[in-house]
């Protein structure tokens, strides 16, 4: 391929030129540096026009985007706020969050900077730059490596061949890219934004575009932990959230276990009918059941209060979720409703495990003289326990964040006068929701999100470390 002489009398084609002229004369870093300055130029030096065009297209697009969105002209007096384009102004906004407030002048209301839009644009610019950086690194690396290979005497490669080869090798990246873009902009971007808001003073007293938002460092964290009313609410809600998550998981697991063991008994008639009935709470959408229970436990009109009066247990209606003097009643009822909703899942699960325990285990136990209770204690429970531990952790995390049940059932009530914007059954997540949506304390809400993430993250990491998943990475 390298030395085939064509009978054509024409001048050598450009593709052959680098081999004829001093291709080895250019040291390897030169194309790399060139590519670092202008993506694709190194490839051009390497005489690979196709590749050069590919990389240059990204470069040109980025520069054009910056130029057209910005305000660049010859001999200008440059400031990022007035002249910067998508990238420059974006990064400027991310750092400063704007410096010109909205003002009332003789000409009327002059709009200032909208800090939150600047912040968001800044993050978008930053993320876009990160994605572009991948292309840039690829370009520099490719230019340098190709030159080294040429210098080592390898044959030249046509751009088309390179891309064909890359397509095969890069299938993974290409297949992942739609998901990557979606996750970056719908998940990573919001999460980054949310984390950053925790370090600003963005709340109802300081709303853009009226006011400028500023970076405040760890002030919000300090506020939650040091201002007594905040700290009190936080610790109270946190304690209840943990109590709730533990009790809710334990009760549903225990009840599910009991039902599964009873259903597995050979004396039960029509086990499938019973099983299907018991599965109903799991199959009915959670929001529907929670709202139905909310109506049943309605203090004024609900049928349960009425029933208790009818049979003479109480003289007056019980305000299950709205009686501030009795927060534990609301908590207990919420746990009971959660038990109703949650036991079928564990029942189905443990039922599956039970059918997989070989009969020989029980026979062996019987021969050793174990009664039914001992069989349960020494055969059934350990096996079920081992299979269900990861699910218990998962259930704990789910209950920790069980927004649906608490919000639909009690809306966090009954009110608690000692708490800030929280009721007695509020979990961290429902409190967070109220802070953000009802009270527009975005910065405090963001701090809470970070705290919730750390708690949930710690538990998940601990769970992962025990499982084999992490070792399989």
């Amino acid at each position, binding site marked *: 391929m390298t030395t085939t002489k064509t009978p054509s009398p024409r001048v050598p084609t450009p593709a052959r030129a680098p081999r004829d002229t001093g291709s080895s004369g250019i040291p390897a870093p030169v194309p790399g540096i060139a590519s670092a300055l202008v993506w694709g130029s190194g490839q051009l030096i390497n005489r690979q026009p196709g590749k050069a065009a590919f990389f240059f297209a990204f470069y040109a697009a980025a520069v054009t985007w910056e130029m057209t969105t910005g305000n660049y002209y010859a001999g200008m007096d440059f400031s990022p706020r007035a002249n910067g384009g998508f990238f420059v102004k974006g990064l400027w906004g991310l750092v400063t969050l704007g410096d010109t407030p909205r003002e009332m002048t003789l000409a009327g209301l002059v709009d200032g900077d*909208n800090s*939150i839009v600047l912040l*968001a644009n800044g993050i978008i610019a930053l993320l876009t730059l990160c994605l572009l950086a991948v292309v840039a690194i690829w370009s520099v690396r490719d230019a340098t490596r190709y030159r080294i290979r040429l210098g080592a005497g390898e044959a030249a490669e046509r751009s088309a061949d390179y891309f064909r080869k890359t397509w095969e090798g890069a*299938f*993974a*990246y290409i*297949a*992942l890219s739609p998901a990557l873009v*979606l*996750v970056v*902009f*719908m*998940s990573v971007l*919001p*999460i980054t934004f*949310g984390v950053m808001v925790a370090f600003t003073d963005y709340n109802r007293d300081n709303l*853009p575009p009226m006011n400028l938002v500023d970076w405040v460092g760890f002030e919000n964290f300090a506020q939650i932990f040091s201002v007594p009313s905040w700290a009190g609410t936080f610790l109270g809600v946190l304690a209840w959230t943990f109590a709730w998550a533990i009790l809710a998981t334990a009760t549903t697991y225990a009840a599910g276990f009991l039902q599964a063991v*009873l259903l597995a008994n050979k*004396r*039960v008639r029509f086990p499938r009918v*019973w099983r299907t*009935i*018991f*599965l*109903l709470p799991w*199959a*009915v*959408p959670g*929001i*529907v*059941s929670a*709202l*139905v229970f909310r*109506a*049943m436990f*309605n203090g004024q*009109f*609900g049928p349960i209060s009425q029933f208790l009066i009818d049979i003479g247990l109480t003289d007056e209606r019980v305000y299950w979720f709205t009686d501030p003097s009795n927060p534990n009643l609301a908590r207990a009822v919420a746990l009971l409703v959660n038990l109703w909703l949650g036991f079928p*899942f564990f029942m*189905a*699960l443990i039922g*599956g495990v039970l059918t997989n325990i070989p009969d020989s285990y029980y026979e062996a136990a019987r021969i050793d003289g174990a009664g039914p209770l001992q069989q349960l204690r020494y055969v059934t429970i350990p096996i079920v326990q081992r299979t269900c531990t*990861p*699910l218990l952790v998962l259930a704990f995390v789910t209950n920790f964040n069980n*927004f*649906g049940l608490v919000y*639909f059932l009690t809306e966090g009530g009954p009110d608690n006068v000692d708490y800030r914007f929280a009721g007695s059954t509020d979990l961290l*997540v429902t409190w*967070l929701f109220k802070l*953000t*949506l009802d009270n527009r304390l975005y910065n405090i809400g963001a701090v809470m999100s970070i705290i919730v*993430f750390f708690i*949930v*993250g710690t538990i*998940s990491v601990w769970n*992962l470390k025990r*499982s084999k*998943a*992490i070792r399989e*990475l």
Partner: protein
Amino acid sequence: MVDMLRREPPAAIAERERRKGRLSSVLIHLELLVVAVIVIFPLMWVVGASFGPGGGLANTSPIPEDASLDNYVHLFTQTGYGRWYLNSLYVATLNMVGSVVLSALCGYVFARIRFRGRKFGMLAILVLQMFPSFLTAIAVYMLFLNFGLLDSLTGLALVSIAAALPYNTWLMKGYADNLPASLDEAAALDGAGRITIFRKIILPLMRPMLAFVAITQFTIPWMDFILPRLLLQSPSKQTVALGLFEMITDQYANDFTTFAAGAVFLAVPITVLFVVMQRYLVAGAMAGAEKG
């Protein structure tokens, strides 16, 4: 104990065993019956209310005296329920299709292809799935609010897909890991490309996991509250969950029977789906937990 048993005639032992068995059988059935009543009563009550005389909470009963479809008629003519239902259906369908396609593809790539950045990618997935989706939701709300993107059903579906994608990818990857690699290799020897292998070999084998992701992702938007509550605003863009919540939080609980009708109409298809597909769903949840 053993001596005592030996002294008794076999018939007596059998008789005592039988009596003990009958007693425990009665006790077990009694317990099952009590639990069944507790499970069924709230459901019966709401179904009864949906067919009962219209109006408030106070005069509802599990078995209404003069059953009628009035509440259902009212639901579809006087409220936006039909509109909400279609909105939910749209979001649910989009969420299901998008989630299944993307997560199956990503799961296959992570399970079968060794590429640079794979480890980092999987770590990122693990970290991202720890973020409860509502945390993203609140940030998405602040973003959409400032960019004027609120009130879009497609936007809602995209956010839902992205929020669930890490976990679903993890599930798909775990499932694909357990498929024999020899199948791929044989197909590759026959000259099949990556896409062909994925479509013709992996996808059909992943059907149980595809079903699991499809069902969960189809049902989530029907019940999801936080995301739509944050991202949707105008009455014509509400989803069923939002509408139902508004009906029941009405101060005087006047509209309860309409709510009941709406709840039943939402719950019946999903309940049937769950009961029919329970085997898949429990197995899928188990797989998810084992994989972390």
